[in-house]
């Protein structure tokens, strides 16, 4: 048995009000690929940030090659050979790939000036090694996400990291990019690099890992050899209970067409693709859930924004809501017409962190709670309590801070905000992102119930099994074009992925 390269001993981390990690201990062996799995909020990312020096204050001890270490910053950790590739990449978009790779460690010539040539050459060599066929002098912002990620890996290689932490590296990659990443991982392992791989995708974990660390609620549940584990068993360990199979199979009755979209196009000035959305047409009926699948950047969010009048540029094409032609210039108009949008990024586009639960819930319909022009606290509280109760939002009360709620309950509060507007069409942009498994099932049931009440729901998701569970139909977007429309019976992960990666050859002028 090989010696422990990195020993994690009784690590603990407390944030105000949350014990993010408690008493986590395990060893990382030299040269292995250790997968770290757990639900959202299990403490995976916190642990990795501690290892990479991003979080300098924590309880417990780290031993690297038997010597205790305590990193005071990422530079410190990098000097010790530990490098992290965050899920949200950490690159300066305006700088070239080479400049990013050497950021903070720029090569200098005899006169103390930047040695651009040497950096470009070295960067090109590193990228070559990673099968990344890009010009190292191009600004990173112009690169595809997959290539950007390789720039980060090249950076890690350039500092001779022998421990590489990857936080959900495939979440934004196409199939071929994932395959390339896996080849790169194999090559890194061949060189003896130890890899800590965070993921919640079981197939990846079982394809790559030697051992699997399972975290739950900030605690270590178990470290298992891959050979001795099954995906089902790992999921069980992650959740701590059997996942209830949500039975949504009871057929729903589809009503009249509520939303008709024809030839919707959204321009993308200055971009090679020219269109963020191109000639998208589809119908949505009352009592129907239609899913929108596609890779990151396929135009899912843009489609919902266009329908809601929230896009920066105006789309062309026609949208009919309840039979009437609509052309929203502002979300306020969409709201009035009976459209509701629950945004993808709760924190940035949904929550009012400084406000309490009640205020967050009533923000769209506060004008209905006025008496003589002034807001009636009593009517507002009734409004808020009613919907909080109806959606079963778990909160200490409507006076509680919205940020004190779990992700799933925050999401329910925002859905509640929009249900108060009594919409005809509900647009849900990746509603279960950052929501734990139990709350996901509850959101599915909520969507099903709303749908049965006659609402038309359009939902996007980055997780295909989710769409396959809840949707009557699935539309697949690829680079802004609708490449497939699959009924529940036709849809399989395989078919969706094929359509999602069915790019046109990039020769069209």
């Amino acid at each position, binding site marked *: 048995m090989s010696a422990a390269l990195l020993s994690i001993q009784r690590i603990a981390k407390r944030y105000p009000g949350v014990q993010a990690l408690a008493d986590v201990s395990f060893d990382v062996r030299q040269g292995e690929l250790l997968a770290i799995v757990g639900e959202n909020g299990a403490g995976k990312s916190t642990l990795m940030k501690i290892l990479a020096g991003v979080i300098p204050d924590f309880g417990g001890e780290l031993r690297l090659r038997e010597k205790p270490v305590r990193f005071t910053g990422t530079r410190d950790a990098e000097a010790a050979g530990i490098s992290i590739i965050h899920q949200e990449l950490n690159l300066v978009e305006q700088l070239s790939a080479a400049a990013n790779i050497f950021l903070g460690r720029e090569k200098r010539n005899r006169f103390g000036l930047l040695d651009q040539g040497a950096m470009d050459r070295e960067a090109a060599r590193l990228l070559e090694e990673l099968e990344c066929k890009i010009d190292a002098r191009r600004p990173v912002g112009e690169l595809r996400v997959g290539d950007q990620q390789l720039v980060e890996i090249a950076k890690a290689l350039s500092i001779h990291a022998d421990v590489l932490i990857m936080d959900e590296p495939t979440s934004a990659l196409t199939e071929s990019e994932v395959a390339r990443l896996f080849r790169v991982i194999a090559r890194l392992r061949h060189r003896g690099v130890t890899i800590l791989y965070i993921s919640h995708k079981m197939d990846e974990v079982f394809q790559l890992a030697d051992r699997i660390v399972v975290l739950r609620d900030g605690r270590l549940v178990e470290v298992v050899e891959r050979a001795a584990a099954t995906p089902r068993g790992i999921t069980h360990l992650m959740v701590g209970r059997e996942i209830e199979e949500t039975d949504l199979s009871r057929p729903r009755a589809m009503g009249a067409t509520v939303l008709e979209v024809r030839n919707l196009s959204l321009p993308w000035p200055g971009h090679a693709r020219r269109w963020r959305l191109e000639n998208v047409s589809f119908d949505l009926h009352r009592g129907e859930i239609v899913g929108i699948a596609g890779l990151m950047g396929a135009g899912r969010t843009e489609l919902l924004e266009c329908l809601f009048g929230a896009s920066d540029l105006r789309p062309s094409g026609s949208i009919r809501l309840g039979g009437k032609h609509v052309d929203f210039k*502002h979300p306020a108009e969409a709201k009035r017409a009976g459209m509701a949008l629950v945004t993808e990024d709760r924190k940035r586009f949904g929550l009012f962190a*400084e406000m309490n639960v009640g205020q967050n819930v009533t923000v769209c319909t506060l*004008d209905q709670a006025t008496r003589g022009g002034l807001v009636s606290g009593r009517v507002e509280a009734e409004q808020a309590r009613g919907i909080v109760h109806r959606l079963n939002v778990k909160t200490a009360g409507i006076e509680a801070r919205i940020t004190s709620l779990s992700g799933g309950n925050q999401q329910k509060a925002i859905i509640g905000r929009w249900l108060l507007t009594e919409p005809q069409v509900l647009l849900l942009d990746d509603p279960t992102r950052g929501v734990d498994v139990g709350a996901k099932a509850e959101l599915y049931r909520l969507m099903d119930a709303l749908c049965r009440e006659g609402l038309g729901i359009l939902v996007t998701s980055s997780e295909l099994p989710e769409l396959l569970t809840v949707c009557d139909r699935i539309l697949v977007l690829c680079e802004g074009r609708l490449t497939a429309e699959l009924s529940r019976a036709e849809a399989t992960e395989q078919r969706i992925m094929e359509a999602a990666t069915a790019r046109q050859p990039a020769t069209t002028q």
Partner: protein
Amino acid sequence: MNSSAGESTSLLRRIAGQHSNELGLLVAILAVVAATTIFSDAYREKPLQNAQEILRQTSLLGVFALGAAIVIISGGIDLSSGSVIAFSGAICASIMLALAPHDASGAPDTNNLGLGIIAVAIAGTLLVGFLIGTLHAWLITVVGLPPFVATLASLVGLRSLARVMVQEVTTVLMPTGRTTQIYIYDNAFNALGTRWWIPLVIFLVLSVACWVLLSRTVVGRHLYAMGGNENAARLSGIRTDHLKWLAYCLGAMTSSIAGILYMAEVGTAYPAVQGLGYELNAIAAAVVGGCSLQGGVGTIGGTMLGVVFLRVVIDAVAKLVKVGADEYQGIIVGVLVVLAVAFNELRRAGGGLRKQFFPGVLGLLAIGILSVLGGSVTTMMFGRSAGAIVFVGAIVVLAARKLAEYRASRRASQAVSS
């Protein structure tokens, strides 16, 4: 019995928790007033006169601090108030001069304008304030300038424009020709700024109106929402452009009201110096009163107390030093803003005073700078010996702090390596 007592204390605690900032300010205000009463004769000898003067000054600042607070709560910033004050004074005086009856020599006579002319002048000035706010809103929401830039341009531009305008107006209207000031002698008008209770009443009425707007109307809630998260507000169907228009108009119009009052106070429109630097006083009062420059946080009550606190401290220093408060005002405002924001940030970060304040070379230099600053200010206020004591004392205390921080960080790293 017991449980109701428990409930009432928990209710008290809840109120104290929600309004800790306001309570803290109230205590601070009382402390400063008490200290000034003890150390200076002025408050004991003429309590009524001093109280009236502080209230008058507080109200004058308070009027446009309310506007500044609303803009800050809505997530913006208005740097133009000082110049809007000067510009509004000039506009108001120019209208009066233009409408004033002529005396025997044919010169405009502003001794007895009559309420009609005064009302027209005030209405015209408020209209100008509305137009300035509208221009800001257009630059910010349509052209897409950052609020900082749009209102900074007004800060620089409007004062200059007011100076040119006063010279042009006097050239045309005054037989004596071009001057840099316009004098208004009407007693009824001047009373607006000199009678202590008139600014106070205006301030209180505006405060109540602003409080109702922010706390009891849909628009007010939406202002908070926009300040807290503009994207989320827009995506919730809130017309953020309209709200910004309202906020910047309130910012400019409250400054216009203050401009009229300041001009009435001295009976002179003198745009070269009037309201100079006042924008920072207003922002300071709002920030000290608990408004967050990130937006979405703040109250009218807090802002009112912030204004009172600022004026009370300025007045206390003036009384203790026994010179004009004007020179010291900037120092006080600067120090209070840094302390208020630092205090809020430390509370938010949760680390409190355990934070390392003087790391490395930067910390060393900061110790020197703070000691020299404290020493020299004290020297100027209380003489050389007091200054020397403060200088040496600051060095000793801060150096001891640095040493303690250094030891603590050494201990932390040793604890790991042993």
